[in-house]
């Protein structure tokens, strides 16, 4: 089979769509005015920002004034969590609840706040990668000012019981924030209907450019200013608006959310073919709940091999994927997400994440299913660990 180029790392980032790019283009060179300027050229830019904000608010089911543009998901997470912490502190509340397998934008922010004297409870997740609402309920106390739980996990794609958690938070009068960076465009989200107080989203995961995102913050929550300066974003986040990217984000979000049900149906078929096909390799396991899972996410651990070498070899075949091994996490430990669902280090090192999009064709899936076993076979044939596993457990053959 001919070598192909198959981008299967859409949870890392996505290509900018033609529609998003086309929508952004006029605001670079011709309609380049500053949205704060009074003349028509500036007001056109201001109108574009307003209309993008209206569009996004409409999609998320909130008011226009509840959308704040940021540089991306990490900034939105930082703002929501530190902001809610400061609001809490002013009322004598210094306790935050999150989960052990959040994105680092949330975890490291919480760790920072711990150093500042806040108390943080990291609730565990079950072996399927799901937060138990009961754990949140039990962890809430009088001093709790914020619960922040991701909508869907970025590595194993598990969709959390957000509605239930939001209900608990509402009943206990605690702010609820969710990092929805991976969920937006893959799951239907209506913030009012679901009772979400704050939500972070990122553009580059949904075919908008890198460097743009948004925070939804319910009216009535007066988040402290993030960047002091001009009057942009209701005085809360100063800095001249990135008009082209804001416009691109609104268009990309519109496309991503236009027909989520149909997209889920299309993608989950492909996802399931990948999962079933790769699980045919012996000594593999699917990480994360099979049902409560993003339609785009495949995460499988393959015993006896290490993730980075798997990715490098797949890259030689033109398949671009990701892993939770220590070597790819940039630390000595494998992914905190895989450890959180109870995988031993040895098995976490050998994980493979494929995140598909509508660009992924059935032929791509055929090619991946043909290539992965070949690559696994080759790596296992040179792995002393696999040799030991086979000897100790009486397994035969490489695949």
């Amino acid at each position, binding site marked *: 089979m001919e070598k192909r180029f198959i981008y299967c790392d859409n949870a890392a980032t996505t290509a900018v769509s033609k529609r998003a790019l086309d929508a952004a283009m006029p605001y670079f060179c011709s309609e380049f005015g500053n949205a704060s300027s009074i003349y028509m050229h500036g007001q056109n830019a201001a109108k574009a920002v307003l209309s993008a904000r209206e569009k996004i608010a409409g999609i998320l089911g909130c008011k226009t004034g509840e959308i704040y543009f940021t540089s991306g998901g990490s900034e939105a997470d930082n703002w929501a969590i530190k902001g809610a912490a400061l609001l809490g502190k002013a009322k004598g509340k210094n306790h935050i609840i999150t989960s052990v397998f959040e994105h680092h934008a949330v975890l490291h922010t919480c760790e920072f706040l711990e150093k500042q004297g806040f108390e943080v409870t990291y609730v565990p997740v079950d072996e399927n990668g799901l937060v138990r609402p009961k754990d949140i309920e039990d962890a809430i106390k009088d001093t709790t000012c914020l619960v922040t739980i991701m909508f869907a996990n970025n590595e194993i794609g598990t969709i959390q019981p957000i509605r239930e958690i939001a209900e608990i938070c509402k009943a206990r009068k605690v702010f609820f924030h969710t990092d929805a960076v991976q969920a937006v465009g893959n799951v239907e989200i209506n913030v009012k209907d679901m009772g979400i107080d704050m939500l972070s989203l990122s553009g580059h995961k949904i075919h908008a450019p890198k460097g743009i995102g948004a925070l939804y913050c319910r009216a009535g929550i007066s988040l402290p200013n993030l960047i002091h300066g001009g009057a942009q974003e209701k005085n809360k986040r100063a800095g001249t608006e990135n008009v082209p990217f804001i416009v691109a984000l609104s268009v990309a979000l519109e496309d991503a959310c236009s027909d989520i049900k149909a997209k889920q149906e299309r993608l989950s078929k492909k996802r399931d073919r990948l999962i079933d096909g790769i699980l045919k390799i012996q000594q593999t396991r699917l990480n994360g709940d099979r049902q409560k899972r993003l339609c785009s996410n495949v995460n499988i651990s393959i015993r006896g091999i290490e*993730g980075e070498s798997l990715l*490098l070899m797949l890259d030689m075949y033109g398949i671009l994927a990701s892993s939770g091994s220590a070597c790819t996490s940039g630390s000595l430990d494998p992914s905190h997400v895989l450890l959180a669902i109870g995988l031993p*280090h040895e098995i976490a090192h050998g994980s493979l994440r494929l995140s598909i999009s509508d660009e992924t064709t059935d032929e791509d899936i055929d090619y991946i299913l043909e290539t992965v076993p070949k690559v696994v076979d080759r790596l296992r044939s*040179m792995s*002393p660990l*696999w040799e030991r596993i086979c000897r100790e457990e009486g397994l035969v053959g490489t695949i």
Partner: protein
Amino acid sequence: MIYSEKVMDHFANPRNVGEIENADGIGEVGNAKCGDIMKMYLKINGGIIEDVKFKTFGCGAAVATSSMATELIKGKSIEEALKLTNKAVIEALDGLPPAKIHCSVLAEEAMKAAIADYYTRQGLDPELYVGKVSHNCDACEGCK
């Protein structure tokens, strides 16, 4: 993190992969928890390393450093092989990213462990010839 072309070449086409039946010395270092294990097999005749093979579980650098280490000691005397340092392996590969230096340490240790095993099989005290061999990479916090 970017690998040199040499590292990628040794990863894509590793030299001396496999096992040696009736090897005269076998060394295994590293552990599964840390994500790398190297196993080296030596065929030694008259003090010369006539053949060397390896098997590695680990990242691209782990495979490449084992491959390069086997190339550097094949056909050499034991004395010469024992002079091989992880630095020489790194240089021969045109460098390694900082986070991957421990892989080259592991390759050196695997080779030494295999030579130590050879001496043990000869009924000799390996420490006299090879010194102390660490079976875990000292650079790796996970092993401590």
